[in-house]
């Protein structure tokens, strides 16, 4: 009898795939940005950075934000003078027009609100993908490196900064209520800086550190450093990387965590936690996995440079 009832229920509810529940905390609320955006063609997931020379038009920065299905992309920066929403459809990548000239560094915050296909929703609440781009304004000839880190609670992060000296170098950072200033020995043309050493006591969840390295001898100009560190909540776990294989007849088989709702290869989006796609090994591809809580994995396949998937989560 149970079987008969099950058959009837199936007939009544239809067979369409639905989004999967994700028990994880919401990524955006957990201080874990996951929006996918591109600056001068380079992909970033969540946090990104780019520099521009003072006085140059901001339109020189080609910022594009990736949408999924249809929805709204909201972009904000008080300093760079942008606060606008754009509607998108068909999983478009929206080009964000920046106006004016580079005068002060700014942070462009991005929110991607996805409207999933109606039939897949199954009454579930869905959540945004957030991101932030640092636009660093430099005077002509200034050297700069930018880093961003999504850091788990109780964890440490390190950056390696290249330095043009074999001796010692001065390293200083400000921001996030810290004042770090130290002479360090250069090893293999670089210095390693640890976040917990630079900002050991900070309780800030989003740190914008600005600093420099300046060789003490021989004299040389400083290299400026921007380092954004976002500490995400203890209970939040980034989405696991998918299991990807090339099956028979050149098909790509992708299996994500059971909580994954969308698997997409390039422009082909499929509802579910696993999917198969037609795949060409000699062409570049982008693979995406999304959950309704805004967790995501984005993988790039870039032959002939590499035939491995480079993934960010």
């Amino acid at each position, binding site marked *: 009898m149970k079987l008969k009832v099950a058959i009837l229920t199936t007939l009544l509810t239809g067979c369409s795939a639905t989004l999967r529940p994700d028990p994880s905390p919401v990524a955006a609320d957990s201080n874990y940005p996951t929006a996918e955006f591109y600056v001068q063609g380079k992909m970033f997931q969540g946090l990104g950075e780019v520099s521009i020379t003072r006085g140059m038009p901001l339109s020189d920065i080609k910022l594009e934000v990736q949408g999924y299905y249809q929805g709204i992309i909201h972009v904000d920066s*008080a300093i760079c003078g942008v606060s606008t929403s754009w509607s998108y459809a068909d999983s478009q990548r929206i080009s964000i027009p920046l106006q004016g000239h580079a005068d002060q560094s700014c942070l462009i915050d991005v929110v991607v609100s996805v409207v999933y296909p109606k039939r897949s929703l199954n*009454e579930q609440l869905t959540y*945004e993908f957030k991101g932030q781009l640092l636009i660093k304004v430099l005077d002509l000839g200034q050297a700069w490196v930018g880093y961003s880190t999504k850091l788990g609670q109780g964890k440490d992060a390190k950056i390696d900064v290249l330095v043009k000296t074999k001796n010692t170098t001065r390293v200083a950072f400000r921001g996030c209520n810290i004042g770090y200033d130290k002479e360090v020995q250069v090893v293999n043309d670089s210095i390693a800086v640890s976040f917990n050493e630079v900002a050991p006591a900070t309780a800030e969840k*989003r740190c914008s550190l*600005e600093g420099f390295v300046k060789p003490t001898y021989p004299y040389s100009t400083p290299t400026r450093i921007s380092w954004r560190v976002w500490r995400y909540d203890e209970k939040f776990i980034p989405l696991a990387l998918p299991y990807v294989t090339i099956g028979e007849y050149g098909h790509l088989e992708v299996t994500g965590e059971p909580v994954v709702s969308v698997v997409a290869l390039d422009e082909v989006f499929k509802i579910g936690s696993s999917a198969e796609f037609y795949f060409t090994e000699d062409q570049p591809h982008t693979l995406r996995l999304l959950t309704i809580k805004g967790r995501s994995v984005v993988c790039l396949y870039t032959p002939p440079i590499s035939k491995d998937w480079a993934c960010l989560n």
Partner: protein
Amino acid sequence: MPQLGDHMIELLLSSSKGGWSGVASFAILLGVLAVLYYKRQQASQKMADDKNAERQHAAGVKNTEDNKADEINLKKAENDIEEVLKGGN
């Protein structure tokens, strides 16, 4: 205890034995159930849509506020480090 599914199966079985009234009853019952299910789905989907739209708006507002705070912190850090560079301290 007999359940709705049992009744439907009985109706289905009776219709298969040639009773046209059974077929009609079954079709009507199925139709009514489909309409009820569709209406319920629509109502709860609208509720979810409204909640999602409300949250999207709130996320936009929060984005603007977060941006202001972050840009103030960035500007302060930049000013402070430039002072250090100028002063040599």
